[in-house]
């Protein structure tokens, strides 16, 4: 679950490349139809005025995980749940099993266009996540744990290496600050009262991380975008672990429907590492120290291929609305690990 949020944050630190300001005939000749449709024709927005612009965006994201996979094979909850007296305890079955994981994030983003090629941004996610569980522990046969609060705030800078009528290259680099809590607690079967929650229920990474992204946009008759992004993590947090790095390659193809509406579809391949180190507070004694799969740092990460679809709409000139949904078509997970069912986003971007 947390991997999802980290992957999401990588894509959020990049910005929609704005067409660079034009002045000469040859610069205007380079503009594509889409760029022309986006130009503010007010003289106050002319090349003589300051190119500085503020942008503000609010993004709502949701995702749901249900069911388990070991590598690319489905495994049932019965297989993952350890049953007293009926089977032997192994490293692949657990007395506590998360069943359905739901997460929601509201992400607020502020951008500042320094000049034609450079844009700075800051984004703050507010996260709410909830996990349903089953267990063999008396009194905890079914229980729900949730956590919510501020996640990791990220700073970013996007630079246009090239931006003309036919294509653009943008590179984005950032710094994710450890502002999200890694000390979330809740009532688990591990003990009476509240205890430290597993990695999935924490709100931040606890480390300084570096989101990077390189994006190529083709603006011709067949407009498409290819993006390579990564979240690189450093050091070890106060709980003696570090989340795994994430890498993602995605492509999107745009179908303009009208002057203000476009559909897009695409695919993304993601790879994420398992967790390095361990939070000893969420383990138990005995030969099998992990009470649930999500407490085992090795049962994180894997490969995933998602298909993506969405629509972008500009109802008024200063507002852009983008809705998207994606669904995995292939997951190869270090399992048993909860599998992703879907994820969706709704973004409102304002330029002023």
């Amino acid at each position: 679950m947390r991997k999802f949020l980290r992957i999401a944050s990588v894509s959020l630190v990049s910005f929609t490349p704005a067409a660079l300001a034009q002045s000469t005939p040859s610069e205007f000749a380079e503009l594509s139809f889409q760029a022309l449709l986006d130009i503010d024709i007010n003289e106050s927005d002319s090349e003589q005025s300051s190119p500085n612009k503020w942008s503000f965006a609010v993004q709502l994201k949701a995702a749901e995980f249900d069911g388990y996979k070991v590598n690319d094979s489905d495994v049932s909850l019965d297989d993952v749940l350890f049953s007293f007296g009926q089977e032997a305890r192994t490293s692949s079955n657990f007395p506590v099993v998360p069943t359905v994981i739901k997460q929601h994030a509201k992400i607020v983003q502020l951008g500042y266009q320094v000049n034609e090629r450079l844009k700075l941004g800051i984004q703050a996610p507010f996260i709410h996540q909830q996990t349903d569980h089953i267990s063999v522990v008396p009194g905890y046969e079914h229980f729900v744990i949730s956590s919510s609060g501020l996640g990791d705030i990220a700073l970013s800078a996007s630079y246009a290496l090239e931006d003309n009528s036919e294509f653009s290259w943008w590179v984005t680099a950032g710094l994710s600050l450890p502002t999200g809590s890694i000390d979330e607690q809740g009532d688990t079967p591990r003990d009476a009262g509240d205890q430290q929650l597993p990695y999935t229920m924490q709100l931040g990474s606890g480390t300084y991380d570096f989101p990077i992204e390189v994006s190529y946009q083709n603006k011709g008759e067949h407009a498409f975008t290819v993006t390579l992004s990564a979240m690189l993590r450093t050091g070890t947090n106060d709980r003696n672990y570090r989340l795994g790095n994430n890498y993602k390659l995605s492509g999107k193809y745009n179908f303009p429907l009208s002057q203000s509406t476009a559909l897009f579809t695409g695919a993304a391949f993601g790879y994420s590492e398992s967790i390095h180190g361990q939070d000893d507070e969420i383990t138990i004694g005995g030969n099998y120290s992990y009470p649930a799969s999500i407490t085992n740092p090795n049962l994180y990460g894997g490969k995933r291929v998602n298909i993506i679809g969405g629509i972008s709409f500009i109802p008024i000139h200063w507002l852009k609305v983008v809705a998207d949904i994606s669904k995995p078509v292939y997951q190869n997970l270090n399992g048993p690990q909860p599998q992703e069912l879907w994820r969706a986003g709704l973004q409102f971007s304002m330029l002023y």
Partner: protein
Amino acid sequence: MRSLFIAVALTLAVSHSAYADLKKLDKVKAAYMFNFTKFMTWSSINSDPVNFCVQNDEAFQQFLTQLVESRPTSSGASIRIVMLDGKQSCTFAYLIENDDSLVNLATSTIIISDLPNLIDRPAVFTFYEENNRLRFEIDLAEAERLELTISSELLKVAKIK
């Protein structure tokens, strides 16, 4: 050599000043028009050159000339930007005033205009403004009459009449 440099500099200065005061709106229109020629074909496309006539605006004509000369068209057509003076045949005509010059145009001329109601006959492309953005409308009946083939990419971003 020095005199050549001065001559080139003066030429550049004069040519730049010709459109220095041109409004941003007009520059965007010029870029649209250039794109129109790239995303459509017309019956006389292989005739060389194509005359693109501009009505009563020399600054715009200068700007569009330099814009077209800066980029080759995908069709390979050679486009000549000229003032509308009734002496030349016009493949395209950009009209900003509703006067007799429209009546004198050949019936095969592809008209682009800012005016929604031209006398005599409609424009194929009509510009309009919406939320501080420049948009355009395509009159499909007129395009059909002129036997134009308009790319779906162009139709997608246009308002269809």
